[in-house]
């Protein structure tokens, strides 16, 4: 009985702590650099930097996690690798590049104590992506509907795709009903003096659910069934 009372109090606290317009679940933020395979540009990057048949990749560091991973995410280095994003169409008109990708790109986050991530130059190279994919696979997602847009007039661009979490040691933290619907988004920008040679853009991004928390009408009977 006492436990029920505590549970009720807990549920009420949570309900009132969260605004009615609750939205924008946050999974993680990241920063790093992207590159293109096999069209790794040497010595200068072509315009546009990616075309049909190329594979888009990115490596970097996870800079923050949602607090739902507190106690699950350990110490050491947290890196990510975006790969298997194959270009299916490309449009480049008026200085604006738009690229779409085949389904099933993969975004993975790794945890390791080596703190050895090293971008190097002209990827793929001896340290990239290898030092970004060592250690324990913490979380992975299938990425589909990925689109990249880069505006050479503003020297700025972005990418966006739908992510479904489906692997990794920390996957259990996210209930099965909440593993789909995430949005993998990022900014891609150049020219930028901090970009190592051979990489194309410095990227800054996030994985989040931007839409309002979905709600559905249910009967008390259906709700009770959930707990039986």
């Amino acid at each position, binding site marked *: 009985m006492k436990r029920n009372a505590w549970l009720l109090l*807990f549920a009420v606290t949570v309900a009132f*702590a969260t605004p009615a317009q609750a939205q*924008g679940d946050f999974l993680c933020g990241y920063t790093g650099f992207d590159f293109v395979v096999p069209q790794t540009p040497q010595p200068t990057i072509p315009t546009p930097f990616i075309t049909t048949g190329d594979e888009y990749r990115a490596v970097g560091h996870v800079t923050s996690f949602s607090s739902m991973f507190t106690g699950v995410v350990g110490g050491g280095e947290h890196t990510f690798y975006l790969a298997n994003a194959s270009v299916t169409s490309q*449009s480049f008109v008026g200085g604006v590049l738009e690229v779409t990708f085949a389904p099933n790109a993969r975004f993975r986050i790794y945890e390791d104590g080596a703190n050895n991530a*090293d971008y190097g130059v002209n990827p793929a190279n001896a340290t990239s992506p290898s030092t970004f994919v060592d250690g324990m696979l913490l979380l992975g997602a299938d990425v589909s509907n990925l689109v990249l847009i880069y505006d050479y007039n503003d020297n*700025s661009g972005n990418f966006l795709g739908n992510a479904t979490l489906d692997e990794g040691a920390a996957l259990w933290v996210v209930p099965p009903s909440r593993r789909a619907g995430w949005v993998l*988004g990022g900014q891609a920008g150049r020219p*930028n003096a901090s970009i190592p040679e051979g990489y194309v853009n410095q990227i800054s991004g*996030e994985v989040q659910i*931007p839409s309002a928390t979905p709600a559905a009408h249910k009967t008390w009977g259906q709700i009770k069934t959930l707990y039986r």
Partner: protein
Amino acid sequence: MKRILGTAVLSALLALGTFVPQASAQCVTGTGVDILLKWDANGFSFETGAPYTNYVSPAGNVLTNVLGVTLFCAPLSGLDPNDPAKEYTMVWSNLVSGGTVTTPFGASGSKYSTVYTGGSFALYEGPINARAWTSSTIPAPAIALPGYLDGSVILSGVIDSLTTTVTRSSLGTVNGSFRGKYRVTGGTYANQFCAGNSPDALMDGLWFPVNPPAGYTGHNNGKFDAPDCTTPTQSTTWGRVKTMYR
């Protein structure tokens, strides 16, 4: 019972999810130009003036952006964004919109570019009140702004230019980015930047306009690069050097 408790705990964690910065985030990129500071999806922009609708900022609107820093690098690496006693927040102010220019691209895409000018920024070290706000929890701008403005200004300067680019792709997805230049002119840490003579440096990041919190035009993440304090060099002849002293 266990199942109910588990569900309740997981729901609570998801509902209250906020940011936990990672200490391991790498500042050095190996090129000599490094990140100065970064924030993660907890930047929020709003405009005063005419209504901002469909990613279009009317000319003359004034943009404000507030954010909580999640990573500091040199020369600010001594600051801890997770300090339990204080927080570091930044406010961009007085960025006047030149009006949004809409341009089609690709099969059926649209681009919304807006240039803002005349702005400034200030980085505050103050009491903890705004750091944990997310898209789900940030209050309306008038209530939130004081939480970002309190404390002492440790770095300030001008934003010489800011361009936001929102795109609606041919698939219908919407995303955006920003790019600008800032220059340090004041604050207690100003003398750590090129001995007080800081040149323009890059600021850029994601500018996400979909389903913003009430009263805001979107959320953003991004970074300021550290100013490049390298003294520029130039090839010349001894004759020209002598001429400089005559």
